[in-house]
Structures are given as C-alpha cells and as structure tokens.
C-alpha cells in the first residue's frame, strides 16, 4: 500500500509543472478530438454539436471562453485572448452559434457573431467585435478593437478590403441554404472525428 502511494507521488513529481486544468463545461453532444488542447485556468464553456478538430487550441489563460452551439474549430487554430497588453481588462470571449474557425486562424476577439466564418490563417485582434454572418477571407486581419458590422466581408491585401455582403443580408433563402450546407457538413464530421471529451470533463 505504501509503495503504491510512493509510486504515485514520484510519478506526479516527475512532471515539471502540474498542468492547470481549465474548468470545462462541455455539452454532451460536442465532439472534442483527443489531440485538441484546452489550456488555462478560466472557464471554458462549449455548447451543443461543437466540433473541435485535433491540434486546435483553446486558451483560457487570460479570460473565459464561451463557444456557442454548432461551431467548428479546425486544426492549428488558436482561440482565446493572448497576453494582456495595456491595463488589466477582462478578456472574456464569446463565440456565437455556427461559427467556423478554419485552419491556423488566430482569434482573440471579444465577440464573434453567429454564423461567421474565419478563414485559413486569418486573425482577429484583441478586443475586436465581429458581427453576424461575417467572413474574414484567408490571410486577412481584423485589427485590435475593430468593430465589424453584420454581413461584412474582409478581403484582399492591406486594410482597405471591407464590404457588406448585400445578397446575404437581403435574402433569407441564401442564408437558409448556407445553414443547410453547414448542418450537413457538421453531420459528416461528427461521424469522422472520434470524441474524447471525457478527458476534459472527468476528474
């Protein structure tokens, strides 16, 4: 009995820093891949039908992270506020419903609206507020504290590429079709990515 306890303590001491486990609230229908990383000590809340791909990172070091239902976070994407730069402000982060965050995107926004797509390698600066149905094209950047109104598309080189997607705004059937596509996508992904949310919810 004593030897067993000793073995346990040695194993614990061998790890350099005891990992701080975030306080996770994960809905039972969410899929968190085994190799996804959730770090930090703040609260991480993940809604229904969320899919988090392997090697995606959710950082809750500097604030709470709330992820709405039906979101998708791809590999190498980093979600969560970074090191605070100025005065200590609350760096909570709210991601709405049905948001897709693609490969290598870096999201430090304060709020991301429903059904927004953040494409490959895009970045959203700290404290930015992104509206609903926005799209940030590949390798584009949303600056710190910037506010994007609903249906904005960010594109091109530099900072000038901003326009409002009128078709998406005015026509509900287009939005419905997009939603249908997204739902089908999620359905397929659900069958392909094995879930290991137990890793985060147990203990």
């Amino acid at each position, binding site marked *: 009995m004593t030897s067993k306890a000793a073995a346990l303590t040695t194993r614990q001491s061998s790890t350099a820093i005891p990992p701080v486990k975030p306080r996770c609230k994960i809905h039972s229908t969410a899929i968190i891949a085994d190799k996804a990383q959730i770090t930090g000590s703040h609260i991480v809340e993940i809604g229904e039908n969320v899919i988090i791909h392997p090697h995606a990172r959710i950082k809750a070091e500097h604030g709470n992270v709330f992820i709405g239902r039906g979101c998708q976070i791809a590999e190498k994407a980093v979600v969560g506020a970074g090191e605070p730069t100025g005065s200590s402000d609350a760096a909570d982060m709210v991601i709405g419903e049905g948001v897709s965050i693609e*490969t290598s995107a870096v999201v430090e926004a304060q709020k991301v609206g429903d059904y927004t797509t953040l494409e490959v390698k895009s970045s959203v600066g700290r404290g930015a507020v992104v509206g609903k149905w926005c799209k940030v094209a590949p390798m584009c950047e949303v600056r710190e504290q910037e506010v994007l109104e609903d249906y904005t598309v960010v594109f091109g080189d530099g900072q000038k590429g901003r326009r409002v997607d009128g078709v998406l705004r005015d026509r509900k059937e287009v939005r419905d079709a997009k939603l249908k596509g997204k739902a089908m996508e999620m359905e*397929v992904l659900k069958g392909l990515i094995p879930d290991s949310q137990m890793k985060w919810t147990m203990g």
Partner: protein
Amino acid sequence: MSRPTAPVSRRSTKTEYIETDTGNKISRRAYIEGKQNIMLGGKTVIMAGVHLRGDLCRKPEPAAEGEKEKPNTTAISIGRSTVVSTNTTVRPPMRLHKGQMTFIPMRIGDNVFIGPNSHISSASISSHVYVGANCVLSPLCIVKESSKILPNTVVPPGMTVPAGTVVGGKPAKILGEVGDGWGQGGGGEGEEWVEGGDLRALVRSVK
C-alpha cells in the same frame, strides 16, 4: 594511452526522418491523422510540423450482407519525389455530391514542391508544380502541371490554375507563363534541383 572512443554510430540516436521501404521520408514531428487513408508514391518527403488530415475521407458505405468489407478509401494520395515542407496543412476539401456532403479524395502529383506554412485543400495538384511559402490553396481548386504559385498567394475556391502559368496575389491572378525550359534538368546525379524540375536531388539531400 587513448581513451576508449565514444560509439561512433550515430544511427543509434533517433533520426529526424523515418524512411519507408519505398523511400518516403516522413518526419517524426509530422502530425498525421488517419494514416490508413494516405498514399505516398515513394521518395516523398513529409517534413516536421506537417498536418495531414487523412481522417477526413469519404465515409465507406456499410458492407451489405454477405459482401466483403470494402478496402480503405483514400483521402490523400501523393505522387513520387514530392516534397511537403514544414508546417504545411493538407486537408481534403468537402463538397455536395449526389445530395450528400462528402470529402473529395485529393491527389497530388509527382515532383511537386510545397513551400513551408502553406495550406493545401485543393481537389488536385498535377505534376511538376511549385507552390511557394505561405500559400493558401482553397477548397476544390485545381492546379495543372508545370505551374508556379508565388509565395503568399491565396488561390480562391474552385479556381483552375492552367498548365505552365505563374499565379500570385490575394486572390490569385495569372501573372504570366513559366516559359520554355522551366523545370528542365535537376534529375541527374550531383545536379542542383530546380523549381518545377525533378526533385530527386532535393529528396536525396533530406536527412
């Protein structure tokens, strides 16, 4: 008196690359999902930090009663002497096919060079293509043979890059042709490798 020399064989230490029977060199630090769905043609290099998403494949239909289970579906197939540089992501694209969302198996040809930090989600890349660093090849784009994609290019979804052209910009535009003699040589012993040419020399130099 000489001291006993330290064991010379550096083979005992772990090498960066694992070499397969067909000469593929795969970094130990590559992140490979669903390896049963990935085909490598031989003499292909997968560098450190590369993400290969082989798990995103067409879902095999459940075998009917009495039928044999179908063999694995291929999600990513890469040809011979192709080099995938560091921190690149290769992820098969998804589209609506016969009323169902499916992942399209992606095909990368022979002697293709893919630069570091790129994202590849194209439907197909033909042979002798050169892709620069930090490129994004959006879902379902098609890259034809002997074309060159400049660094920091975003190829939009569904674009076809014609054979023998140079493309660049965000979004990608055709900027010119590669010209005659592009990609000639590079295959022989002791020769330097050239863009769009035979990459065997480069593959050999990777250790």
